[in-house]
């Protein structure tokens, strides 16, 4: 064979240094014409079963399907001290090759197996669960890509993506299910992006995409639209269907920030906006976002002080028993009177308090104050207090209720805790256990805002609520809307079949009152039968025993 002939020729050459054949580094010696004339044992092992002697390097690499070796000689022609060239063999092994000129004529190629080194380095930069880039790789790529974009005067878009409702899946169904879901989410990222885009998992349910080399902001907008759509589609996993969503904040280099920190901050603010706007959407950074965040920070500072500065107080709204037209109780409503801001709406500060984990102390204050004040009223009517879903997480509820009842001396039968469906969304077993214990103390548990949540009926089955509060959206204008009448009637029928009473919320006109009475509601609450009032006014109202329900209705 041709190679054997060549081998004989090679053997006739001056002997190689004795150590060469046994060196761990693969050594290939080429003649002036760049044909291989010698390989040591390590090099032979690399290319087995192919015999490299006599071949050129391109022929050798082609015959064993190795990639990346074409440029080996380019480096030698350019420099005396060439950088290694990365060669990928067909079996995924990676070699670093360097070609040097031999003073005796010809060339020597050394090949080092760097497979494990590279793999480890890659692993340190890849998220092992999803195979996406990790935060470390993302950060170095951000810096590198910004540098290149600056040189080439191109735009880059950074998309920050947070999954909506993912924590619920993880908390209720376990990490394994959560991990499997994350892997599917990563797949959808890959299907929505181009190879040049860098997709990273920054941790938990946070992702980021760096979009380079395309027109901005148009391409970022279409990618964000696709991601919101794709990630928000249902997932079938282990026999279950999962619905999560994506909130996305987009910042574009250079307009939204020239440095990595600046562009990260802009994307973060935009993401914050997307979440505040109801999630499941994307928002581009706008300079005004900075100001809004500033405003929120100031509000946070004020809210932290509100309790200590005694700026919080309670207002009480009457609940009227329809059978007797008498006041059956009051709902305690929190008010924040700030010296400069004026009255801050609970709709504004309660969600903030929940996010800041202030809801625990604020909730306990409400409970304590309501019980104490109600205990001094002239008649033993009920007192309803709202519980935030997050209070179940942050405070030992049963202990707080027990202690408050003991301290205030309030008859447990007068206390009514109102919870929303939100409280039953996650970690339900623990919440139900808490509620049951509270109920065992003699306290009534009501379901608030009924009809506005996800699957109200299933919650009715989960817990023996004493009362259902029918959301005002079904009550408002009920006299002019047959559908609402039918819905309220259905709720009261259902409630009475389950042994629960009903309170219609938001009754504002005599006509609405007539309708909810006809629909079979037990109690009403609303501006018609009494606006929220101070504790003194509530106490006086009870002392005078005045009710307006019957009177208002007879006016028409």
């Amino acid at each position: 064979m041709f190679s054997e002939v060549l081998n004989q020729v090679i053997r006739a050459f001056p002997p190689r240094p004795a150590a060469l054949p046994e060196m761990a580094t693969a050594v290939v010696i080429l003649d002036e014409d760049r044909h291989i004339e010698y390989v040591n044992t390590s090099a032979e092992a690399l290319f087995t079963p192919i015999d490299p002697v006599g071949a050129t390097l391109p022929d050798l690499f082609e015959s064993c399907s190795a990639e990346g070796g074409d440029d080996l000689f380019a480096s030698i022609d350019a420099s005396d001290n060439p950088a290694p060239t990365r060669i990928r063999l067909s079996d995924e092994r990676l070699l670093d090759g360097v070609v040097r000129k031999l003073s005796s004529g010809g060339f020597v190629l050394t090949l080092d197996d760097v497979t494990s080194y590279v793999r480890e380095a890659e692993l340190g930069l890849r998220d092992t669960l999803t195979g996406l880039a990790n935060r470390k790789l993302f950060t170095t790529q951000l810096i590198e890509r910004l540098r290149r974009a600056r040189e080439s005067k191109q735009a880059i878009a950074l998309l920050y993506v947070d999954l909506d409702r993912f924590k619920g899946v993880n908390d209720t169904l376990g990490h394994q299910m959560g991990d499997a879901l994350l892997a599917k989410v990563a797949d959808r990222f890959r299907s929505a992006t181009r190879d040049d885009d860098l997709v990273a998992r920054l941790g938990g349910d946070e992702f980021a995409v760096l979009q380079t080399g395309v027109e901005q902001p148009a391409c970022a907008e279409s990618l964000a639209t696709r991601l919101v759509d794709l990630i928000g589609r249902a997932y079938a996993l282990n026999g279950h269907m999962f619905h999560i969503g994506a909130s996305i904040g987009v910042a574009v280099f250079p307009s939204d920030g020239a440095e990595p920190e600046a562009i990260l901050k802009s994307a973060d603010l935009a993401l914050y906006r997307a979440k505040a706007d109801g999630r499941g959407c994307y928002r581009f950074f706008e300079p005004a976002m900075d100001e809004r965040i500033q405003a929120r920070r100031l509000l946070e500072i004020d809210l932290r002080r509100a309790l200590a500065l005694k700026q919080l107080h309670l207002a009480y709204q009457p609940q009227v028993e329809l059978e007797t037209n008498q006041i059956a109780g009051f709902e305690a409503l929190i008010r924040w009177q700030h010296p400069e801001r004026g009255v801050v709406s609970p709709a504004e500060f309660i969600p903030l308090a929940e996010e800041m984990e202030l809801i625990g102390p604020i909730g306990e204050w409400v409970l304590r104050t309501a019980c104490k004040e109600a205990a001094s009223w002239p008649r033993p009517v009920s007192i309803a207090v709202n519980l935030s879903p997050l209070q179940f997480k942050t405070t030992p509820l049963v202990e707080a209720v027990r202690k408050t009842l003991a301290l205030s001396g309030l008859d447990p039968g007068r206390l009514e805790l109102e919870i929303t469906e939100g409280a039953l969304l996650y970690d339900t077993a623990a919440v139900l256990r808490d509620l049951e214990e509270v109920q065992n103390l003699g306290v009534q548990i009501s379901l608030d805002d009924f009809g506005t949540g996800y699957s109200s009926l299933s919650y009715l089955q989960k817990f023996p609520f004493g009362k259902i509060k029918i959301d005002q959206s079904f009550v408002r204008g009920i006299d002019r809307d047959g559908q609402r009448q039918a819905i309220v009637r259905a709720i009261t029928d259902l409630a009475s079949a389950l042994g629960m009473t009903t309170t219609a919320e938001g009754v504002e006109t005599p006509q609405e009152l007539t309708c909810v009475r006809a629909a079979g509601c037990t109690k009403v609450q609303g501006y018609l039968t009494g606006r929220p009032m101070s504790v003194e006014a509530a106490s006086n109202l009870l002392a005078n025993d005045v009710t307006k329900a019957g009177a208002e209705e007879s006016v028409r």
Partner: protein
Amino acid sequence: MNNGLHRLVYYSRNRVGQDPQTLSAAIKSILSASRRNNAQVDVTGALMFNSGCFAQVLEGGRAAVESVFERVQQDERHGDVAVLAFEPVKTRSFDKWSMGFVGASPDDIARYDTLAEASGFDPARMTGEALFQTLHSLALEEEGKQ
């Protein structure tokens, strides 16, 4: 974990557009891809297009149905995917079809679509069971023709 026979029923909105040629080409490509992929993992089912909606039944082993459905979800030729049923079943109902196309043929879709609308068939208003039954009876009709 139960990897037994499962059935998934969904409908979704057409995003290909209304142009008859584009639509019929898209449906043909969806069909040929699903026939190829489904046969590999032993998933059977039927697809129909009506009133601007795709309706599809997938049946097979749980993991196989889930992976086929994941590919469906990543397809941007449709959107607003609503899953009406995903549950274990005892038997296959489309065992002869890697992916049957039922109702009007892809070429006739554009022409007949308005007719179908007039007939009142709207997958968006159906339960999973009703949609499944519709596709199944259309599939039986189709088999009768062959």
